[in-house]
């Protein structure tokens, strides 16, 4: 039994969710290998080799994988899949894009976004926006799995000394090609990696008012998020979205401001260690999951909070 973890990276650095995915692989047991497919990505392979407990890093350095598009990446993973009982990737937009394609190429039923490994073939995963947790047992020969990063504590990024084995590209596809990317530039931590997150909902009333949250975020070293309602209303871009169809976060402190607490939003944040809710509607469902609730007008409470931090 051995597991292949697909590294998520930007050709220079390994993305942190990879370390949580390795943690899930360790619970499954057996040897763990990491695949680094990219372009001029030796530094990522070196980083992966240093991850604690990794036996081998497979490096495919080819311009075809610069943007890790689904078609070529899935073909490549398929070409080395025979050696593995499990293939794991983080349940990020990268993993969600590539792994189901691989799964169909291998004729196996993927297990999406697991939150617990029960045994080598049995896993827990949330369904219906996390209203229920299903325990499922897979009968496929190769288990193709995406992992919810927040459900597994990351392994150590150092202490390992895996070998790095370079292999050649295989199955390069020209069905799709990269045009450009607009990556949001921010001095604040990434939403999924931040230890404190402050999010705004429809109650913020406009995108301009998000500066009230940003002021507090900068004092706390926090990331700024939003509910789907705030994204739908055009206040902020979609990469702010926390919830069932956005990002899943589990920081030490989550501050929900002007968010009513629809089940779809709770799905993305209810595993946070401490939850604070600020809402002027005392009946808002968000208060049912909040450790500390403050019934107040956010336009008074936020400046006051900024002042006291």
């Amino acid at each position, binding site marked *: 039994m051995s597991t292949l973890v697909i590294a998520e990276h930007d050709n220079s650095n390994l993305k942190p969710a990879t370390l949580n995915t390795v943690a899930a692989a360790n619970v499954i047991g057996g040897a763990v290998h990491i695949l680094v497919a990219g372009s001029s990505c030796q530094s990522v392979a070196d980083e992966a080799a240093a991850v604690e407990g990794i036996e081998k890093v497979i490096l495919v350095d080819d311009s075809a994988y610069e943007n890790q*598009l689904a078609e070529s990446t899935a073909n490549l993973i398929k070409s080395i899949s025979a050696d593995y009982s499990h293939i794991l990737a983080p349940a990020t937009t990268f993993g969600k894009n590539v792994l189901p394609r691989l799964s169909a190429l291998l004729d196996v039923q993927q297990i999406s976004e697991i939150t617990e490994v029960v045994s080598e073939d049995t896993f827990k995963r949330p369904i219906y926006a996390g*209203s229920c947790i299903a325990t*499922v047992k897979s009968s496929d020969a190769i288990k193709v799995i995406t992992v919810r990063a927040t459900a597994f504590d990351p392994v150590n990024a150092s202490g390992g000394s895996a070998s790095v084995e370079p292999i050649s590209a295989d199955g390069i596809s020209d069905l*799709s*090609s990269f045009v450009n990317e607009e990556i949001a530039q921010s001095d604040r931590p990434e939403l999924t990696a931040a230890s404190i997150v402050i999010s705004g909902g429809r109650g913020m009333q406009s995108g301009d008012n998000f500066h009230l949250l940003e002021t507090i975020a900068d004092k706390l070293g926090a990331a700024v998020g939003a509910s789907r309602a705030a994204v739908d209303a055009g206040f902020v871009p979609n990469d702010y979205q926390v919830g069932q169809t956005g990002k899943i976060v589990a920081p030490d402190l989550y501050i929900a401001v002007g968010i009513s607490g629809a089940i779809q939003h709770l799905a993305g944040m209810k595993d946070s260690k401490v939850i604070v809710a600020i809402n002027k509607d005392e009946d808002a469902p968000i*208060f049912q999951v909040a450790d*500390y609730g403050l019934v107040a007008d956010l336009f008074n409470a936020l400046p006051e909070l900024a002042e006291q931090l």
Partner: protein
Amino acid sequence: MKIVVPIKRVVDYNVKVRPLGDQSDVDLNNVKMAMNPFCEIAIEEAVRLKEAGTASEVVAVTVGKSDSQEQLRTALALGADRAILVETDSLLEPLAIAKALSKVIEAESPQLVILGKQAIDGDNNQTGQMLAALLNYGQATFASEISIDGDSASVTREIDGGLQTIKVSLPAIITTDLRLNEPRYASLPNIMKAKKKELDVQPIDAMGIDTAPRMELLSVELPAARQEGIKVESVEELVGKLKNEAKVIS
């Protein structure tokens, strides 16, 4: 250009789903059903491409029980030209659904297939990508903007860090994210007209595909409940609690 839009009948998003008493599955007795919200966005995009003169025909497809005809009628009322139900009494997994859809698409040979990025019941986010693999089509998932340019489509994708634009050769699979468009409501005259549109029912058994389940559902349970919290009276009290009790800020 013909567009095929696969859709799914799911529990309405306002319903809070609970496990059955014996925890063998979720309790779906007497719950309100609806078209999956991301599928509405897919239908809307296809209809807009038709209204813009880019597409000539929009075909809605679903794989499910006979009662899924209700959601196909909704799709017809929203502007699809005709509909196909691949009928099965079994609850199929995404791989089996993708296989059934691939047979329909091989027969229809559209230039574009648009579907929702995920269904809000199983939250799997798999079918579109699997369908692309089975048909050997290119895929553009989580789309927030689509423009058709001859024999390719330029698609802006919602990715974790921001936006990515890719070009994909047609025919292709596109899956929708929530900012792609705002779906319309069906008007009463269009609901009436939809009743007369063609709805073809095809038995899944005639397709010659393996739909056997690969996963066994062992149990369904409620997630661990959070301990009840407290209400604080002021910002000052809140800051004090966060510093001294929860110790999450300093």
